[in-house]
């Protein structure tokens, strides 16, 4: 039991370093006289401001037989029961003009940061699905004996890996997107999927080639076609081996998705930029955004680790 006190010591050292880092952040923000105002960020995450209810036409406030306040338009063709709202801001006999606030309704609403998070999740999931399809297809083409298929796959992978994602996003948005009249969200998904697909293709190829040749031979000698052997024998084994690099690639995908903000998709990063200018709390906003990305990537790698454990059954 010699290691016990030692371990404790090292864990304490780790915690101490983290604390020191936190203090350093605090001290440096003090030096530039930064006022931390976390409460300024919260409305952008979860908005609890009551929604105002506006009159849609000119009209009057009347009371009906049950003593409830109603808004009645001048022409009499529109009536709005005001008793359904929590807070009524008018009283009987008031004259109302179009656009006046008559009541307000308390409610919960996700702020722009959470909406941006939603867009990031959505764009990541779509891109992920298409990246897997592209990566699998081109990975299989890459190991195929057909020269046309193999060269197509090599060309795709080399072009995509040899150019920056930001440039690819611009090309797809301004060129492909314009020619095919795509929405910006679709352009973003295509750019991310095509980019990640090239890396998935390389991972797939590596996985397939890491399976001993005898597996394919055994499968073929039993009468399986090449594709059957791939599907039932090679790919399931390759999948297990490529899971860790694949997970790394998907984590990159989530992070890379922040680049689509350059084509005005309001993802988490773009939402962060917008909120910074409205809230005057840049540090808090960017720390929040970073934390939310960390939450996404963290849950993904946690999920993959669990999958790995389950697949380890046959080892």
């Amino acid at each position, binding site marked *: 039991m010699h290691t016990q006190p030692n371990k404790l010591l090292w864990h304490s050292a780790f915690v101490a370093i983290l604390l020191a880092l936190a203090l350093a952040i605090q001290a440096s923000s003090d030096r530039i006289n930064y006022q931390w105002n976390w409460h300024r960020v919260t409305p952008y995450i979860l908005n609890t401001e009551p929604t105002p209810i506006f009159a849609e036409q000119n009209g009057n406030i009347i009371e009906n037989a049950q003593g409830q306040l109603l808004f009645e338009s001048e022409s009499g063709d529109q009536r709005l029961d005001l008793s359904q709202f929590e807070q009524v801001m008018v009283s009987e006999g008031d004259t109302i003009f179009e656009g006046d606030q008559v009541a307000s309704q308390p409610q919960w609403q996700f702020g722009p940061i959470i909406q941006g998070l939603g867009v990031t999740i959505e764009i990541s999931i779509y891109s992920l699905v298409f990246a897997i399809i592209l990566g699998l297809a081109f990975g299989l083409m890459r190991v195929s004996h057909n020269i046309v298929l193999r060269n197509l796959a090599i060309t795709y992978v080399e072009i995509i890996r040899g150019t920056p994602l930001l440039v690819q996003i611009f090309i797809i948005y301004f060129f492909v997107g314009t020619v095919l009249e795509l929405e910006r969200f679709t352009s973003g998904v295509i750019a991310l999927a095509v980019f990640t697909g090239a890396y998935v293709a390389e991972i797939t190829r590596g996985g397939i080639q890491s399976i*001993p040749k005898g*597996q394919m031979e*055994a499968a073929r*000698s039993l*009468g399986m076609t090449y594709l059957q052997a791939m599907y039932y024998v090679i790919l399931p*084994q390759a999948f297990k081996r490529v899971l860790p690099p694949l997970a790394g690639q998907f984590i990159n995908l989530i992070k890379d998705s922040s680049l689509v903000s350059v084509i005005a998709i309001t993802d988490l990063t773009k939402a962060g930029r917008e909120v910074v200018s409205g809230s005057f709390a840049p540090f808090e906003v960017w720390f929040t955004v970073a934390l939310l990305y960390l939450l996404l990537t963290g849950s993904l790698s946690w999920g993959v680790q669990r999958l790995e454990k389950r697949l380890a059954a046959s080892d």
Partner: protein
Amino acid sequence: MTRDYQGDDMIIANNVDKIYPNGCHALNQVSATIKRGEVVVVVGPSGSGKSTFLRTLNQLETINSGNITIDGTDMYDKKTDINQLREEVGMVFQSFNLFPHKDVLANVMLAPMKVAKRPKAEVEQLAKKLLIKVGLKDRMFNYPNNLSGGQQQRVAIARALAMEPNIMLFDEPTSALDPEMVGEVLDVMKSLAAEGMTMVVVTHEMGFAKEVADRVLFMESGQLLVDSDPESFFDNPTNPRLQQFLSMII
């Protein structure tokens, strides 16, 4: 087609040449005929082309010239479906090549279900019968990596038999085994021979050849030099290369 073949010649190799892409001339004008129910053992020094010959018989290697007829079907006829032909030719490898992501039962059941498209219940019954036959019924739910080499090779034999082939090819099935496990695999092969299976066996087990083989082939440098019954092969070899080979291994 092939299943209806009633003739006696199960394998006919005619002037087969195999040149690997690197220029290695692995088979040089090899001709042999193997009859229904025959057990033929192939011996020869390492690199003489034994594996290559065996692998041309189910087209794991294509040939450069000559022709091969399996179970009445010309392998290189344009109308021949090679996958269908392979269903009739089981193969057992030196390195077992079991599917490590599937348990023993699933290894045996995979091909009959996905290739022969037979119903699961029927295939499961067949697989269990075969696992009893190779003495591994109690290992049904083990994964290959948890089995000994001898056990893995017996599963591999059961897996090949599950396609109910008419021919079985064995490429040094006991060479990767610890000595104490060689017997259990040879016993399974002997019982298969006794049931009348047509077998081509590449092996260094001369005892097996003497006891079970109907004929023994000797290969060297890609050529088939001797094709004879085991008695004259081992007791009265006339070919000087064979004499030299036998003197080295005994």
